[in-house]
Every structure is written in structure tokens, then in C-alpha cells.
């Protein structure tokens, strides 16, 4: 469906929820966005799916409570992603154990690669990017959001988002180049 039509449909559902606490309309909103929000959180949580799904539930519960604060200048999906992003940040700060996982992943990405496919290795390379670049690559490049929407969700200045996008892309391009040259020279992985 065309994004503009999607947005209008979201808006109509939001109005129904606000008008008379229409749970059926909210059910449709959750159904329409659960996949993207959960995928977003799974990437933020570095594929800890159970943790990501807990955060996704909290995201939708917060959306229910704060729905009257939704301003239709932004897309409903962008508004949801911002809530999910904040839920993640809040939980992440309370769980220092996840910082250790980040270091482990960084080691894996810079260490010897397993020959399990380019896609999987790319995911590791993505996880190894500096935090700001990783977030911008997630929202802008992977999820296809604009620079402005990415800035809105992450709370980063627009200029910083653009810089992170450029640097993140350059790093991944270099990573791919190295990957291919290693493949061509037959480096054992």
C-alpha cells in the first residue's frame, strides 16, 4: 500500500481510539505495526528476541496511554518507533549486562569470520559500528526512514544523522571490500 494511504488509515484508526477508546481500532494499529516495531527492537537488542518482545509490548502499552499526545505532523509509525527507541534506551541503561554483549560482538566481528554467509557477517559488522552510526544505519538505510525521521526518533541533530549515515556507509563499504578481497585471495576464515 502507498505510504500516504497507510498514514491516512493509521490516522483514522487513531481518531477512533481517541473518540471512544475503541479497542478494535487499537487492535488493528498493533496488528499493522507489530512486525516493524518488533524487528526494530530485535536489532536494537542485538537479536535478544525475548527482551525485544517485552519492550515491544511496553511500547504499545505506552502508545495506548500517550495516544492523545500524538500529533499528526509525523507519521504514526515514526511516532511508534520513537517510543520503542526510548523504551530500549531506558531498559538498556538499567541493564549493564548488555554492554558486555556489545563487546563480545565487536570481538567477533573483528576476529576471524565464520563462512556462514555474507548476510550474517554483515549483521556482525553492523553491530560492530559505533553506536550512533549503527542507529542511523538501522533507521535510515535498513528501515528506509528519512534523515529527518531518523533524527526525530533518535533525538540526534539532523547534521549528526547525516554525518553518521555517511560514515557508517563508508565503513560498511570498506568492510565489504575487505570481505571480498579475503574471499578472492582464499583467506581461510
Amino acid at each position, binding site marked *: 500500500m502507498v505510504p500516504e494511504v497507510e498514514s491516512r488509515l493509521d490516522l483514522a484508526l487513531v481518531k477512533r481510539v481517541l473518540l471512544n477508546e475503541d479497542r478494535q481500532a487499537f487492535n488493528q494499529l498493533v496488528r499493522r505495526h*507489530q*512486525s516493524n516495531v518488533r*524487528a526494530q527492537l530485535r536489532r536494537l537488542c542485538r537479536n535478544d528476541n525475548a527482551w525485544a518482545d517485552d519492550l515491544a*509490548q511496553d511500547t504499545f502499552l505506552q502508545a495506548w*496511554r500517550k495516544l492523545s499526545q500524538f500529533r499528526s505532523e509525523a507519521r504514526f509509525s515514526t511516532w511508534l518507533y520513537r517510543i520503542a527507541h526510548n523504551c530500549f534506551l531506558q531498559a538498556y541503561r538499567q541493564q549493564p549486562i548488555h554492554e558486555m554483549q556489545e563487546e563480545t560482538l565487536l570481538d567477533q566481528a573483528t576476529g576471524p569470520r565464520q563462512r556462514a554467509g555474507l548476510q550474517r557477517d554483515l549483521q556482525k559488522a553492523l553491530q560492530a559500528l559505533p553506536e550512533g552510526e549503527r542507529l542511523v544505519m538501522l533507521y535510515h538505510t*535498513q528501515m528506509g526512514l528519512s534523515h529527518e525521521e531518523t533524527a526525530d526518533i533518535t533525538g540526534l541533530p539532523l547534521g549528526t544523522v547525516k554525518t553518521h549515515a555517511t560514515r557508517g556507509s563508508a565503513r560498511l563499504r570498506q568492510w565489504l571490500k575487505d570481505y571480498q578481497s579475503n574471499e578472492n585471495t582464499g583467506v581461510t576464515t
Partner: protein
Amino acid sequence: MNLSKEDQNDDLLNQLLRDSAADAVPDDGFVDTVMSRLPAPRRHSNRAVWLGLVSGVGLAAWQLQDNPMFSHVARDWSGGQFSMASALVLALVVITACCTSTGVLTK
């Protein structure tokens, strides 16, 4: 037109990144879980309306008790009669009750 190696790599990279984001997450009962965790529907608004109406009727009756027409109607009702004056007073009480309860609710 031949694409340079770098352009091909850019395309490949973008494709890989988008592909990795395209995986749909199946519902698997997620929506039902969220819906079951929503807070119970609010009912206090109905209670407030009824409370307002009852207070309104009470206040209206209290305000009209010294009115001769009101005592006349009270006598009619106790005698089992329902005159035009009774209907008028009843309408007056309902209107006063509604106005009072609206005032109570909006304060």
C-alpha cells in the same frame, strides 16, 4: 552501461541491508498479549453522570420546595393525580437537574 566495481558494491550493500530489514516478524499471539495488558475500560465517566444527575435532582427539589406550585403538585401526586401543573413542575425539575449536573461535571 557497465557499473563500476564500487557502484556494484554499493548496490549489493544496500540490497543486503534492506533484505535484512525486510523479514516480517510473525504475530505468534503478540497482538493478543498486548490487548490483554491494556488497562480496563474507564467507567468513571458514567458514574459521574449519574452522580451529577442525582445531585441535580436533589438540588432542584431543595430549591423548589418553598414554591407554592411545588407543594400543590406534591399534594396532587400524593392523591394519585397527575395534572398539567405536575407535568410542568416535573419538566422544570428535570431541566434544573440537568443544568445543575452539567455545572457539577464541568467544574
